[in-house]
């Protein structure tokens, strides 16, 4: 296998990474921070798009896997002095394991029921974060060690580059996947599950593998988030974050990998704008009020562009 990216996703991702790596030297810290957040959320949403856009399923609990990745990495680093590099791998592994076990309950269900089941699982996992004193309970986890490379401890610029390097790898992997026979079979079960089953496709197993893969993406993103923020608590991984991941997926275009990145950028940017604008326009509105406007934007996009913003951009043909 040559090291060079073999699909257009990988090549474009390398260019995007290069742009980010250059931009962080000029951008004010505030924007570098937003870039990092967009990168971390993009990673989650790329994984979610495989499960939602390609396999045609739905998950309203993705934030829980981000949380599992974050907590695992934090516990490993704080209690066992494990480097976050390994912590990220551990976070991905634990998120994958939890997704695997939960899939035996959740993936027997379809559509609305699957949405409800994943929503409930997300909430239950969040309750565990809240109640488990070993991982800090409701007050969370402080002083999480950062990533290091030799003697260099990551600064905000390095986190922006790291998160976008992971986006590049994540989109390259997902891009290979959706163009392979695996990805085609995902599209087949999403379009006609019974028809695919009649050809010998074990739809439940295929969904399970994809669900676990989406949890790996989320777990890695969570580990980076934990070290980047150096502080996590249960409210960082609540239901609203799960909803935001679905918003990012849908706004960008479900069956589009770059759509995941575009969706993440729009939701983060919109969140910032609303945070600045809403208190001025509606002084009595409280924090969660911006969620209302995000919802309104989502509805507008669904009506105007049912395939999301990237729906018209040709990605793999007839997405």
């Amino acid at each position, binding site marked *: *296998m040559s090291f060079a990216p073999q699909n257009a996703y990988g090549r474009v991702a390398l260019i995007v990474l290069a742009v980010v790596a250059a931009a962080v030297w000029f951008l004010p810290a505030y924007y570098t921070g937003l870039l990092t957040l967009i990168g971390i959320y993009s990673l989650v949403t790329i994984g979610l798009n495989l499960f939602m856009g390609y396999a045609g399923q739905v998950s309203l609990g993705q934030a829980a896997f981000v949380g599992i990745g974050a907590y695992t990495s934090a516990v490993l680093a704080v209690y066992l002095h494990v480097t976050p590099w390994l912590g990220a791998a551990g976070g991905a592994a634990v998120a994958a394991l939890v997704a695997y076990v939960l899939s035996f309950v959740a993936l027997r269900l379809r559509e609305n029921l699957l949405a409800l089941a994943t929503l409930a699982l997300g909430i239950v996992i969040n309750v565990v974060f809240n109640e488990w004193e070993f991982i800090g309970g409701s007050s969370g986890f402080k002083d999480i060690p950062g990533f290091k490379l030799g003697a260099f401890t990551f600064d905000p610029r390095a986190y922006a580059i790291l998160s976008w390097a992971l986006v590049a790898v994540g989109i390259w992997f997902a891009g290979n996947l959706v163009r392979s*026979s695996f990805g085609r*079979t995902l599209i087949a079960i999403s*379009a006609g599950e019974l028809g695919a089953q*009649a*050809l010998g*496709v*074990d739809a439940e197993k*295929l969904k399970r593998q994809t669900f676990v*893969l989406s949890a790996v993406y989320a777990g890695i993103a969570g580990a980076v988030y934990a070290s980047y923020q150096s502080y996590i608590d249960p409210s960082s991984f609540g239901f609203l974050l799960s909803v935001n991941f679905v918003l990012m997926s849908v706004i960008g275009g479900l069956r589009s990998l770059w759509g995941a990145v575009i969706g993440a950028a729009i939701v983060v940017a919109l969140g910032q704008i609303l945070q600045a604008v809403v208190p001025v326009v509606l002084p009595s509105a409280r924090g969660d009020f911006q969620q209302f406007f995000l919802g309104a934007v989502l509805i507008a996009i669904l009506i105007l562009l049912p395939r999301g913003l990237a729906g018209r951009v040709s990605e793999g043909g007839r997405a």
Partner: protein
Amino acid sequence: MTAATTAALTATTLDVRGVSMRFGGVLALDDVTFTARTGEVLGVMGPNGAGKTTLFNVISGVQRPTAGTVSLGGVPLTGCPVDRVASLGVTRTFQTPVMFWGLTVRESIAVALAAREFGGSYPPPPLRALLPAGFGTPGRRRADAVLNDRADALLASAGLAHMGDRATESLAFGEERLLELARALAVEPVVLLLDEPLSGLNPDEVADVLTLVRAARTAGVAVLLVEHAVGELLSVADRVVVLDHGRKIAEGTPSDVAADPIVIDAYIGDELE
């Protein structure tokens, strides 16, 4: 496999024994028993509501029968999910063709071939498909290229070579039927269940489907054919099973069945109702 079991497999492929299916107070299938052999076209006839589609649903694993068993060469299929039944060699088409929108015609066939590549069931463990595909290993890329080539070859042999690059969303109804049939044949089934494969087709398309059915029979497939076009069904079937109100009322050669007063009664009775 011993010679004896091989002989048993070739003699009797599909064994449907005492199958009943009850929906609430309705007995959709009532103690139906028959066998289908390799290399024959077994027509399944009956007026509307006779239980033909329910029979297919039971055999293919969509529904579990209330009573009775279905087995393939001695291997029980009863209670197996659809994909397991398919991986054991029984596949089917649907009254309304199921298309994989989002894929091209070639890719749709390749989906069937991918299942075939891994012993009739997809996906294999992640180390064998998901990870090689995601990392884009040369081996996986070559294997996918081979699937594409084989899909093209299959399309050519079905007379659909010109359709390979078309999006499945763009197909006409008759083309959907032909693609679904070609897709089912791509998994090299032992038993193929065709649910009204001729309905909605023009005469040319009917001829195309019947050609594919005959070719499958020659290749040793046991084809079960539910069809309302009685003339075409009798012309292509080697044997016919007739259902009425869930019960098997006749079985035999097309000419015997066509002359059977009970069968004629069932059809005329149906038309008078």
